[in-house]
C-alpha cells in the first residue's frame, strides 16, 4: 500500500488536533485534541516502520527488527500516564473554579 495515504491521514489528524487546540476553549476538548496529535504521530511512526521493514534491503540485514511497532506501545503507556495526570489537573481545576474554560485560567498573569 502506498505510504502517502498514511501520511495524509496522519497530517489530517494532526491538523485537526492543532485547530482544535487553537479554537476550542474547553480544557477537556483541548486535551483530547492534544491526544489526537499524539496519536497522529503514533500512526505515522507505525506506518513508516511497517513500510521500512518491508523493503528487501532491510530484510536482508541481520539486525532486522520491527522497532517502532514496539516503540509505539511505550508511547501509549507514557501517554496513558500523562492523560491520568492531565485529567486529574482538569478535575481539580473544575473543583476550584467550576469551569474548564482555559480563558479563565489566566489568573497567574497578575
Amino acid at each position: 500500500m502506498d505510504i502517502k495515504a498514511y501520511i495524509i491521514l496522519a497530517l489530517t489528524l494532526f491538523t485537526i488536533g492543532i485547530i482544535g487546540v487553537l479554537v476550542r476553549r474547553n480544557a477537556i476538548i483541548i486535551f483530547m485534541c492534544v491526544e489526537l496529535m499524539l496519536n497522529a504521530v503514533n500512526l505515522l511512526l507505525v506506518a513508516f516502520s511497517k513500510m521500512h521493514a518491508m523493503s528487501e534491503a532491510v530484510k536482508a540485514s541481520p539486525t532486522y527488527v520491527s522497532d517502532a511497532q514496539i516503540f509505539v506501545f511505550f508511547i501509549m503507556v507514557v501517554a496513558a500516564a500523562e492523560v491520568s495526570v492531565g485529567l486529574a489537573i482538569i478535575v481539580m481545576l473544575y473543583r476550584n473554579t467550576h469551569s474548564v474554560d482555559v480563558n479563565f485560567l489566566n489568573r497567574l498573569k497578575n
Partner: protein
Amino acid sequence: MSNFLQIVWLIPILPLIGFIINGAGRNILSKAVSGFVGSAVIFASFLLSIYVFIEVKNGHSEVVHYFNFINIESLKIAFAFKIDPLSSLFLLIITGVGFLIHVYSTSYMHEEPSKDFAKYFSFLNLFVFSMLLLVMGANYVIMFIGWEGVGLCSYLLIGYWFKNNDYTNAGKKAFIMNRIGDLGFLLAVFWLISKLGTVSFDEIFSQVSLDKLSLADKTGITLLLFVGATGKSAQIPLYTWLPDAMAGPTPVSALIHAATMVTAGIYMIARSNILYIMAPLTQHVVAITGLATAVLAATIALKQNDIKKVLAYSTVSQLGYMFLALGVGAYTGAVFHVMTHAFFKALLFLGAGSVIHAMGGEQDMRNMGGLKKYMSITHLTFLLGCLAIAGMPPFSGFFSKDEILAAAYANNPILWAVGVFTAVMTAFYMFRLYGMTFLGKFRGTQEQEHHLHESPAAITIPLIILAILAVIGGWIGIPEIFMHGGHRLEAFLEPVFRQSNAIATKHALSHSKEYMLMGISVAAAFIALVFAWNKFSKYQKSETVSTGFTKLLENKWYVEEFYNAIITKPINSLSAFFNNIIEKKVIDGLVNGTGKAVNYGSRQLRWLQSGQVGAYILLMVIGILILFIIQLFL
C-alpha cells in the same frame, strides 16, 4: 670609569631618601628631626658635589651609564648621568644654595604644625632631587623627567597653603603655563628621535648627527625647545605664572622661583648650545624674547608695592638677560649670570623673607620703612644684594652683567642700549625697594613696630653666607681686560662650549671700547641708584590715584587682562557651550533617549504576554510553520 664616578648616583638619591623619610614619617617626626633630615641630606649632596666638582676640574668628565630606561628595538634611551663642567657647576649651585635655603626654612617655617613642616621639607627635598636629575641627565629624556619633576614640586610648594583658594589657583596657573612649555620640549624630543633615533647629548651633538639635520630641522627643534624654556624660565609669553608663584612660602620663592628651577631653561639651552649656534633664526628669537622680557618685567617692577612681587618681576627681568646672553652666543655669560643671580637673588628673597617674618606677614612696602635700625644684619646683607643686582663693581652682578652687555654690543649695539636701559631700571627699582623698606620712618602699625626684631641665627647665617657669595661670586669671571687669565669660569666651561665657539664668529672689542661701555652702564645705573635712594628714603604714603602711564605699569601692562580676554574667556565660553549644548542636549539626549526607547518598546511588547494559553500556542504554531517553511523551501 674613574673612581669618583661610582658615587655620583648618591647625589640625587640622598634628597630622594630625605623626601621618603619626611614624606612617610610626616605624622610621627618632630619638627627638629624632619628639619635636620631635610637639611642633612642636601648637605651630604653638597659635599659630594664639591668632590665631583674638584674631580671635573681636574679633567675627569664622563657619562655614567646605569641601565636602559627605555629599550624598544632601535630606540635605546639610557638612564645615564653626564658629569661635565656645566653640570658639576649647576650641582654646586643647586645643592649649595639649596642647603642654605633648607637651613633658613627650619626657622622660617617654624610656626607651621609639625605635619605640614615635614610635608614642606619632603616637597623641598623632592624638588632638589628632580632638579639634580634635570641637570645630571645625559639625554633629553632623563632631563625631561627632572623637568617635569621640578614643575610638579613648584606646583605643590606654591599651593603649600592650599586652604587659601588664591594660592591654589596660583599653583595651578604655574603648572598649566609650564605644561604649555613642556609640550614644546616634548615635541622637540620626538623630532630628534624621528630624525636621529637617539636623545643622548653626546650622540646628538656629534658631527655625524649634526650633518644629518637640515637647517629647518635645527631651527624647528631649537624653537620648540625654546618654547619649553619660556615656560620653565618665565619668558614672554608665558611669564605671568612667576609673579603669582610668590604665593608660596618665601624660601620656596628663593630656591625654586629665583635660584634654581627657573634657570632650567637656561641650562637646557646652554646644554644644546651647538644646535642653537647652528640655527641663527632661533638665536635671534631667543635674544629678542629675552630682551623684551627683561624690559617689560623691569618696567612692571618699577611700580609694584608688594616686596615679593618686585623681586619676582626682577627675576623675570634677569632671566631675560640670561636669554639675551644665550641669544647672542655668550653661553658662558649666561651660565655666569645664572650663578651670580642664584647668589644675590636668593639673598634678596631670603632677606625679604626675614623682613616679612619680622613684620608679621606684611608684604606691602608702603607699610614698611626704617627697618634699618631694627634689623641690622638683614639690612646690611640686603644692601649688598641690591648693589650686586644693580651691577655695581666689584660685586658679582657687575661681572656677569657686564659680560652679557659686552657680548650684546658685539652682536648689535641696539641690544646693548636696551640692555643698559634695563640695567638702569633694575638699579632704580631695587633701590626703590631698599629705600621704601629700610630707610625713612616706620609706616606700619604700633603693634608691628613693637614686634620688630632681628631674625634668629638660622635665618641670618644663610643671609651672611649668601651675601659673601654675592660680593665675591663674580671674581671667578674677571674680564680679560682687568686681569689676564682672570676669567676662570670661561676656562672651566670651555670644553662644553668648544664646538659652538669654533663656529661662532668672535667679535673682539677693543679695550678702550670695552672700558667705555662698562663705564656708561655703571654710571647710568649708579645715577639711577642715587636718584632712587634719595627719592624713596623720604617716601610718604599718599592716597593719590595714579593715572596714565603709571597706572599702566601698576596694572602690569594689562597683560593678564589681555590673556584673560583672548584665551581664558573664549575657552570658558567654549566650555559653557560644550556643557550646555553638547553635554546636556546631545550626550544626555542620547543616553536618556536609549532608556526611553527601551521603556517605550517594552511597554508595547508587554501586550504579547497576555496570559491566554491559546494565544501562546498560536504563536508557537506560527513559529513552527515559519521554521518548516524555511526548512523546506529555503
